[in-house]
């Protein structure tokens, strides 16, 4: 452990930061889910739904998501390069800057400083900070990989490299803006062009924050946790290249039936359907890997996190392309179906893999075992039930909403007013809050388990420290 010690503290720092922002993001999510059915819960202008929603999405995408990406990627890169980070102090600075940045981001969003671009809400001073952070990350990742002591680069490193590159390109292009003061700017692109650039970015933010890095962790931690080698190296090669190629063509599927030219919509739909193949390449690879010994589902508590996680990834990557079809899109787009879809990916796939990876890493930093497998199992079931209840409820209400909007009378007039449709959502929105509470309870157990494991590790370290030498007589 000795030579990696310093870097491991940085990894742990990112993991704990990610967990902290994750809890904040989840609690904000609970509050806005209540605001959906109880408008009195919009307490002040700063705590109204419109401002809190981006705090929820940014808190979880950038706080939990990117925090976990920084920490777990460093762990994976160090291990696969067989060497410590080349610039450990830079990583330390990056950790502090990250937390300052996320805190400032949260406050700025509450104050209503927003570019109004989904997943790119942060105003330009924070965009600059994020670019600096990303450059720090890229420098350390590339330097450590270039100076590695293992000739072959394993699959996870491919995904980390692709993540670093793609996020940089996406972020720089979409955040180009015309500043109009310190905390106000206007998109460099207008109208249809603005929409196209934003959803090219928006969809690929999902692709390169919620997919490729998570796949990097999946390919690394699944074999590590189970002791089973990845089923097919060739399949992972094909999946990787086809995924990173096809993803960038699909943004316009968020703009079906908008004024965006039809050819772009159609092109996006085609590539979106194609994406099922590379996505399922990884799903199949995951299943066959564990398929070598299914008893691991029983004997190794982390296995079920990975298997269920990749299962939801598989469902997500079939449901998503289905939604891109015009026939389906016209029914469910703009309804609650979409949050149902998004939350299957984030609650089912991303948090399953990220929390399992953290369960793997944290005890190893301290040379100990997880504090409680029982709590980890309970966490698993709560998170699973909470997510399913959330997603399924939202799919049902989404279909109902979409249908009510379309129903007409015999003379061609609309059968339901907008409000008729809205009030029918209320029972489902109540259920969603309940689902969120169940999910949040599971995540709090996870946090408790991690903190207890660190406490245990610290106690162990203290007990192993050689007693101070008695003063010479």
């Amino acid at each position, binding site marked *: 452990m000795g030579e990696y010690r310093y870097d491991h503290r940085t990894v742990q720092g990112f993991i704990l930061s990610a967990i902290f922002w994750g809890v904040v993001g989840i609690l904000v999510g609970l509050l806005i889910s209540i605001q959906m*059915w109880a408008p009195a819960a919009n307490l002040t202008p700063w705590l109204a739904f419109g401002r809190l929603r981006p705090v929820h999405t940014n808190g979880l995408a950038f706080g939990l998501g990117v925090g976990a990406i920084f920490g777990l990627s460093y762990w994976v890169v160090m291990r696969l390069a067989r060497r410590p980070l080349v610039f450990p102090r830079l990583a330390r600075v990056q950790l502090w800057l990250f937390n300052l940045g996320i805190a400032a981001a949260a406050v700025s969003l509450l104050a209503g400083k927003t570019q109004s671009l989904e997943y790119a809400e942060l105003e330009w001073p924070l965009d600059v900070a994020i670019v600096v952070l990303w450059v720090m990350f890229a420098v350390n990742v590339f330097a450590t990989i270039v100076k590695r002591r293992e000739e072959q680069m394993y699959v996870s490193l491919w995904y980390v490299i692709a993540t670093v590159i793609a996020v940089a390109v996406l972020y720089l292009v979409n955040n180009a803006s015309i500043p109009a003061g310190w905390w106000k700017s206007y998109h460099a692109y207008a109208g249809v062009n603005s929409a196209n650039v934003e959803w090219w970015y928006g969809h690929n933010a999902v692709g390169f924050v919620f997919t490729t890095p998570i796949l990097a962790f999946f390919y690394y931690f699944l074999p590590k946790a189970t002791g089973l080698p990845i089923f097919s190296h060739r399949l992972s090669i094909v999946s990787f290249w086809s995924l990173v190629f096809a993803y960038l063509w699909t943004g316009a599927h968020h703009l079906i039936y908008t004024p965006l030219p039809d050819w772009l919509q159609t092109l996006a739909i085609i590539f979106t359907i194609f994406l099922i193949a590379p996505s399922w390449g990884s799903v199949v690879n995951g299943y066959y890997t564990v398929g070598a010994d299914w008893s691991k589902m029983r004997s190794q508590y982390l296995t079920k996190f990975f298997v269920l996680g990749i299962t939801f990834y598989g469902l997500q990557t079939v449901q998503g392309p289905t939604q891109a079809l015009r026939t389906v899109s016209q029914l469910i787009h703009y309804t609650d179906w979409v949050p149902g879809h998004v939350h299957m990916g984030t609650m089912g796939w991303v948090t399953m893999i990220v929390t399992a990876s953290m369960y793997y890493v944290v005890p190893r930093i301290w040379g100990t075992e997880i504090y409680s497998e029982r709590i980890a199992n309970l966490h698993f079931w709560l998170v699973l039930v909470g997510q399913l209840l959330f997603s399924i409820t939202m799919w049902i209400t989404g279909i109902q909403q979409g249908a009510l909007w379309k129903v007409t009378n015999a003379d061609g007039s609309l059968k339901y007013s907008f409000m008729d449709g*809205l009030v029918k959502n209320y029972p489902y929105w109540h259920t969603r809050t309940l689902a969120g509470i169940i999910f949040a309870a599971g995540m709090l157990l996870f946090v408790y388990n991690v903190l207890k494991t660190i406490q245990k590790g610290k106690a162990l370290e203290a007990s192993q420290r050689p007693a101070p030498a008695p003063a010479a007589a």
Partner: protein
Amino acid sequence: MAGEIYKKPISFALLATVTVLVGSIVTMAYPMLRPDFHPRLEGLRPFTALQLAGRDVYQREGCMGCHTQTVRPLRSEVVRYGDYSKAGEFYYDRPFLWGSKRTGPDLAREGGKRPDGWHLKHYADPRSVTPRSNMPRYAFLAEAKLDPEEVASHMRALHLPHGPEEIAALAQRTEMDALVSYTQWLGHAVQRRQPAAGAVDLAAANPLGDSPHAVARGNQVFLDNCTACHGDEGHGVPDVAPNLLDDVFLGVKGDVPDGAYFALISGGSDAKAAIGRKGLESGGMQAYGGQIPNDDIWAVISWIRAQQAHERKEPPLMEKAEHPPGASPGRTP
């Protein structure tokens, strides 16, 4: 694929960069060069300073989290909101505010649909006009004065035309005024679809007459759709919408046949010209043609006629005793 690439991180990174750039260039960069990505409709007006300030408020409060601004070319959608959105309507939109979720209705065709008074009331307390709405209250906007210098700097950043008087006048306006002004700007560049109004004989008599069934149905339709602006009993709401029970119709004394009522309800304010009465300049009756069945529109007219008859029978004093001021009638949502 040569296995060597997995041993050479620099080559690998370059290849990965090229791989992600192909789709980006075809679907994101290349379209920027095409003229159909920068179209501008003939009638599109740039934002005034007040409207841009309102748009800034719209962005700041995250309105696009719950409201879209793009009508899809689907039949039910065109009936509900108005003509489908055109690329050329968004020339000045930086960024686009099409949104991705309709917790509330689409707003692309909101401009001119309702009077300013309705919006002021609705923004201050949405449930005062739509009882079961889940929209937050934005009453605080009416307290917030605009900062002319700040708005001017935003106008300059976007190279939008503006004059010194226009900027100076902002000092007297609030963020609420700005938001309402922006709301009324939405969708102005596209001619509102002429609903069936033209086909209606203005002199036609109500086919449902005064049947008790029609009056009862009309009462229900009125409660569902009209009370927000015209009050529970049709007496109107000051600064929002006129009394329906007096003998003034569209600002002119003297009643009109049922057919004219139908034309106005069905076609909204756009039907005023056909009826030949100007009404209020700022009036913004929305078109209900297609929103509700034609029979329901006739039923509402049956109910209005019954109310008018009731009003004529009751001396004003008795009416006052029946509804003492301050005792607001209960309303079922």
